[in-house]
């Protein structure tokens, strides 16, 4: 029957099968490629990949730094600051836009401008803030803040007006209605919005790092791609995917913890 849930262990077995399938397919491709060219690095063997991982986690013979640590630190800092500012900004502006029509009218034209892809505006950001951390923060904020804000605003518009009216009849002020009713009501939507915007935030950051950085995951991927060192590039990509999955998982757990009735609703 369609649209029916399956048991947990069935779900786990199917997930493991899908991963195994990818691994098997990759092994087959790699073997075939190495039969044609034994020195190939575009589809490295498992042994080559292990060697690549070893190279990024051990100190570099020239600089003495571990590439992985340097890149993770650089990208992580940029992502954390960019996301933090974007989330706080989106919550404040989104709540105000959803609750106060004047604020909504003010921000609509501004957000129309933000529909330009941030990568296209990179040159402008470059002129405005140079290539320090502000550039990456601006890229992330420009890319995800408008959509997060409009998501929060739309979620607020869907709250039945009776809830707001009732809060006034219970002695609440405007601020209390926003904090106790509106914010709590849309909190799951805010977390969902952060979940969906994690991907775009990473895309904009990696793109910016590829274009104008001398450290970070994007920089390393671009540099090693030019040298066709896929034994280094693939582990970085797997790490990015694992990071996205982990953040997604923790955000889901956070949503379940803070809003246990959300799924039931």
């Amino acid at each position: 029957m369609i649209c029916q849930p399956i048991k947990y262990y069935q779900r786990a077995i199917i997930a493991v099968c899908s991963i195994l399938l990818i691994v098997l397919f990759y092994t087959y491709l790699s073997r075939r490629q190495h039969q044609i060219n034994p020195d190939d690095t575009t589809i490295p063997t498992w042994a080559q990949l292990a060697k690549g991982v070893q190279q990024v986690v051990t100190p570099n013979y020239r600089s003495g730094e571990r590439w992985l640590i340097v890149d993770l630190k650089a990208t992580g800092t940029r992502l954390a600051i960019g996301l933090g500012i974007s989330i706080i900004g989106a919550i404040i502006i989104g709540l105000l836009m959803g609750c106060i029509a004047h604020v909504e009218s003010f921000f609509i034209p501004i957000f129309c401008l933000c529909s330009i892809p941030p990568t296209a505006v990179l040159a402008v950001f470059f002129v405005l803030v140079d290539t320090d951390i502000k550039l990456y923060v601006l890229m992330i904020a420009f890319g995800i803040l408008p959509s997060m804000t409009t998501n929060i605003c739309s979620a607020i518009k869907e709250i039945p007006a009776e809830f707001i009216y009732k809060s006034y009849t219970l002695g609440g002020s405007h601020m209390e209605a926003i904090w106790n009713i509106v914010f709590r009501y849309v909190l799951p939507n805010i977390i969902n919005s952060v979940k969906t915007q994690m991907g775009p935030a990473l895309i904009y950051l990696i793109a910016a790092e590829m274009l104008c950085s001398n450290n970070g995951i994007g920089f390393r991927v671009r540099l090693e791609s030019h040298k066709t060192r896929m034994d280094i590039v693939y582990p970085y990509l797997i790490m990015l995917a694992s990071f996205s999955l982990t953040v997604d998982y923790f955000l889901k757990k956070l949503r379940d913890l803070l809003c246990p009735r959300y799924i039931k609703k």
Partner: protein
Amino acid sequence: MNEIVLQIECVNHWFNHSKTDRTKYKIDANYILYDINLQIKPGEIISLVGPSGCGKSTLLRAITGTHPPKSGRIILNIEDRSTQVTRPSRDIGIVYQQYSLLYFLTAQKSVALGLKLDKTTISQRMNLWKWLPLRKKHLIESAELLSKVKLEHAVNLYPDEMSGGMRQRVALAQALIMKPKILLLDEPFGALDEATRSELRTNLRKDIKSNTQKECSVIIVTHELDEAIYVGDRVVGLSQHWDWRSKGFKSCPGATIVYNKPSPVFGPNNIQDFEAFMNQKKEIQVALKGVSNG
């Protein structure tokens, strides 16, 4: 104490206000309410009846203050102080048709919400040393009220875990804990099955009378005549099918009050006069059906 707690004076309401002069009433098909005049005494239970779409809920929203009337006044008299209702306030409580209980609050927290919003501010709640004991007191008060409406077993249940009848009683307790001067009930039995309706109808008067101050007046909006006569001290009929042609209007100017009479009270100690009940029901039906449109 004032003899009249709520006074509705010449209230008119229409949707298309851009075409209408506010000083002279333009007779327009968009009129919803026309010349509504009503006085409500402290402690009185008024049943507001009328056909679907006649503007009962619009009148209720006007009384709540969320949608003030386009013309006319609604005056609230509390302790020798008269104020015009232009915005919602804690003196006028409301129970909506769908009960509007927040999905993330248990019954106990839903009922305590009013105490939290009314008696404290956000900054006061920041001081946890003062706020936490007060919060505990609010929750105890809320649980006591829930037990009075026979929901002591449901204090920790969320709205999606409760039946329609339980939700109705939680919403009622939520409004009653504020001790409002006026309590508005918008089709409180609308979403319930017949058996639950009948049970709650019997208990509603008791719940209201026993859990509010004597001067709390109640307006119940319903389209069920039996319910209106059974629950209310007075039945007020609102209808757009009144004799508007005799007044020279080209089109119906909206609903007005066509019936306003006391109803036989079906309290536990009263003699249940079913003949009077049936006679009144017929009388209301005739009034609501109207003369010219009938």
